[in-house]
């Protein structure tokens, strides 16, 4: 059954595309949903995803949305394609899930999403960054990355010594951090090594090639290089 993914270029769409590629699935159709033109509010799209969000996974008449649910489905379905990114024992799985949820709540919702949105808006609308908005979010990002730094002094990846769903989920977001304010990554030794490792995976690189909508050349950048990009 042909696989279709609706939605490109946002970090959550990239999460889903990179997951498929991790499992060696290269035969899928990637369809752009034009968010700027509000295509996600069209009746056709709402019939698929009533919360007007990307991405959506479709195979025949089976559809699934919520990027974290989609990648979890792939991880189950393609379990035998390689080492399990869900974890092998009950305890490993629990720790993977703990870090998947921590990424969602302590990094993404709490800090990364509003922070990166403000950068996007200020660039798109050609207005200055709202520093009062960004400063506390930047601190929260820093706190999360301090916790990650400590964890990564004990384990190679977030949930243990194996690449898991938690690392996969955060990689596209960290790429954006590395472009916008890379000192958050560069100034933390373990985070920096881990970031380089998860974003140099073949599947991640293939995802960036498949996703032609991605604007910036991808990192890692030095703090100075990113400063140049920000002011260009």
């Amino acid at each position, binding site marked *: 059954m042909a696989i279709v993914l609706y939605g490109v270029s946002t970090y959550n769409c990239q999460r889903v595309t990179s997951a498929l590629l991790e499992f060696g699935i290269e035969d899928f159709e990637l369809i752009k949903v034009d968010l700027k033109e509000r295509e996600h509010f069209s009746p056709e799209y709402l019939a698929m995803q009533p919360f007007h969000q990307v991405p959506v996974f479709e195979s025949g008449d089976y559809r699934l949305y919520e990027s974290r649910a989609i990648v979890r489905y792939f991880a*189950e379905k393609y379990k035998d394609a390689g080492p399990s990114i869900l974890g092998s024992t009950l305890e490993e799985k629990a720790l993977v899930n*703990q870090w998947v949820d921590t990424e969602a*709540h302590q990094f993404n919702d709490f800090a990364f999403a509003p922070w990166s949105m403000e950068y996007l808006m200020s660039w798109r609308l050609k207005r200055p960054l709202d520093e009062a908005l960004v400063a506390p979010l930047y601190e929260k990002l820093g706190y999360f990355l301090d916790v990650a730094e*400590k964890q990564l002094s004990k384990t190679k990846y977030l949930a243990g010594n194996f690449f898991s769903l938690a690392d996969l989920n955060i990689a596209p977001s960290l790429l954006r951090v590395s472009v916008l304010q890379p000192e958050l990554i560069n100034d933390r030794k373990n985070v920096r090594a881990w970031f380089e490792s998860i974003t140099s995976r073949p599947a991640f690189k293939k995802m960036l090639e498949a996703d032609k909508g991605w604007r910036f050349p991808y990192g890692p950048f030095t703090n100075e290089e990113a400063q140049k990009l920000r002011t260009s």
Partner: protein
Amino acid sequence: MGIIVLGSYLSPYTLRVLIELEELGVDYELKLVNLKQGEHRTPEFLKMQPFGQVPVLQDGELTLFESRAITRYLAEKFDGQGTPLLGKSMKEKALVNQWVEVESQNYDRPLISIVEQVVWTPSWGKTTNEEIVAAEMAKLEKVLDIYEVQLTNHKYLAGDFFSLADLGHLPGTHLLVNIGKKGAIFAARPHLNAWWEDISSRPSFKKIMAKTS
């Protein structure tokens, strides 16, 4: 040594785990964390949960945080005991996960903002910000419209079976509807309301709610 839950009856995230333990028929010990006295911010607590939040689960050597990771772990560990919560086929399981994400991303966030204003803020002796309430209620009502459509076509969120997805809505919705007195937005949507009446009549929910009063 059995299962230990560190948490508070004030926390809907703790209650989610306790309700599930009842559904699974699993014994546990509850160690209360005094949120009012900031016990969740002490160095000892932060060693276990670096973000200073409840609940935390201890099961033998395993220490686990994030309530949805905890509920998923318990559902997997005790699969076959008590109420089945995950779905049977791979596709069913994925739909359960989809609605767990919807609850986490789209439902819980406006709900908790409203509960914070209408329930917790007065309890701290402060004034409710009615502007925030109005804005968040508008967001939540849009989400509830989507739920109404889903529940017109299915008895429960992920299909015709009660799952982790429905269970996750119980404690927060209780705070919103029963304590916060915002039930009118449910009553206005008949299928949503019927679903709420159904899931909130489950013995597991009633048993845990009796402990919070």
